[in-house]
């Protein structure tokens, strides 16, 4: 199963036939394995990594450090669950160090993001402070270099 997951993590669009060849299983078995992993929520979704900047979109991404007062009994989880439900929020991590939650949000404009922080995030009772950093240019995302200039420079045939 681990190998199947690794293969799909590299490329979610691999044809089932190709996966079956690599894994030495039948297509039927591979399909079954994938269904089971989806059902168990080990595979959560199949996404496409897109360079929106290159496409011409000017969405704004902000990384926000959030400080919290933990709730008795629930710690940080209950607050994280409130924050994660906003569509604007792409990522939420609980962190060690000088702040508690790392929240990555996307908005259509600076104003959008500013509004979200001021109206939605900072107004949560347990939030004691926020620091917002705007992303200027992405270089590498999820292990992929966005503008990779390396190419195959090998000769066509070599012994």
């Amino acid at each position, binding site marked *: 199963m681990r190998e199947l997951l690794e293969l799909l993590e590299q490329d979610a669009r691999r044809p089932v036939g190709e996966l079956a060849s690599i894994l*030495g299983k039948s297509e039927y078995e591979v399909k079954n394995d994938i269904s089971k992993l989806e059902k168990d929520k080990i595979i959560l979704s199949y996404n496409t990594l897109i360079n929106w900047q290159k496409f011409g979109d000017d969405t704004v991404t902000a990384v926000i450090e959030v400080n919290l007062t933990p709730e008795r009994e629930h710690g940080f989880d209950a607050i994280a669950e409130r924050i994660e439900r906003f569509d604007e929020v792409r990522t939420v991590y609980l962190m060690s160090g000088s702040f508690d939650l790392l929240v990555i949000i996307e908005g259509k404009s600076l104003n959008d993001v500013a509004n979200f922080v001021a109206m939605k995030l900072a107004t949560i009772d347990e939030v004691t402070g926020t620091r917002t950093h705007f992303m200027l240019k992405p270089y590498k995302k999820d292990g992929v270099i966005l503008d990779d200039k390396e190419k195959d420079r090998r000769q066509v045939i070599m*012994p």
Partner: protein
Amino acid sequence: MRDFKPHINKTVESIPPSGIRRFFDIASEMEDVISLGVGEPDFVTPWPIRESCVYGLEKGYTSYTANRGMMELREEIAKAYRTRYGISYEPKTDCLVTVGVSEALDLAMRAILESGDEVLIPEPCYVSYQACAKLAGGVPVGVAARPENDFRITPEDLEPHVTSKTRALLIGYPNNPTGAIMGRSDLMKIAEFAEKHDLVVLSDEIYGDLTYGDEPHVCFAALPGMKDRTILLNGFSKAYAMTGWRVGYVLGNQDIIAAMTKIHQYTMLCAPVTAQIAAIEALKNCEDYKRKMVAEYDSRRRFIYDSFKKIGLQCFEPKGAFYIFPDITSTGYTSEQFCEELIRTEHVATVPGNAFGACGEGHIRCSYATGIDQIAEAMRRIEDFVKNHSKK
């Protein structure tokens, strides 16, 4: 002086040019060619290795090194062999850093052969083995490995070719072009054979890190009694995707290393310092990068093997290097005809098996050191070709 030919050394003149040149010329004129004909990794050298070289240059590492190579590199090489195979070489005396295995092979041949000495060379094999033996004044004696034995060589294959002039045996496993490996028991028999005829064994283990499945690579020098008899050749090209850096090494008995160092110091002086710095980083910090590349080759290997089986071309499962060596005789073509027709009609470059020795006839070498999407497309084209163009 209009004609230079009379001035060219007769031995050099007698060596035929490589048989794959023709295919290279056809392929380089095409734009959409998918090449399964490349004998080197498609990965670029891992970044830490490149970065350490750049750092070395910034720090001013631009001079000659010791003839035998940087001490730190030799220590790392010795350490790697101790850890991996439990075999101990003294970095000071038993190791020489060379400009790739190619130079190491040339040095080894020149250091051991007297004029007319014979070298047993199992075929199919890498294209330079015979030429190196000849250029050193020796006589290469090709010995056909049998396809029904998955191209592993046996003492029974070798025995009929032994004469009073046989000095050495040159083996290269995991094998280019077949992808064959030799297990411990196979190699033990070769060790007995070498002992019986008192042969020096040159073991080219450049693909030693690229083995798949349950059988780990067996280092020939690590077999009982073989260390002093073996000239072990290896390098960084394949496992660390460092072909263009040209850095390899030899491990062996201090006398043979001293002899090879003598030739090396007068002809090459030392391997490039930049490449040596990079090689140190490769051994010290790049195991994980290597492991990832090997895992990727393994996926492709299983895919391409399964694809050939589905096409119906007979083929044994390769367990090492990054080549597969299917039998194409069922199509009615010779190896060369098959490769030429395939590239002309389907724009897929492969290498005819006979380029690696006469017994490779009837096979083609396909390299899977290329992206799996490319391999999948190449296999679709090969399937079409076999279906629509077979003569039988």
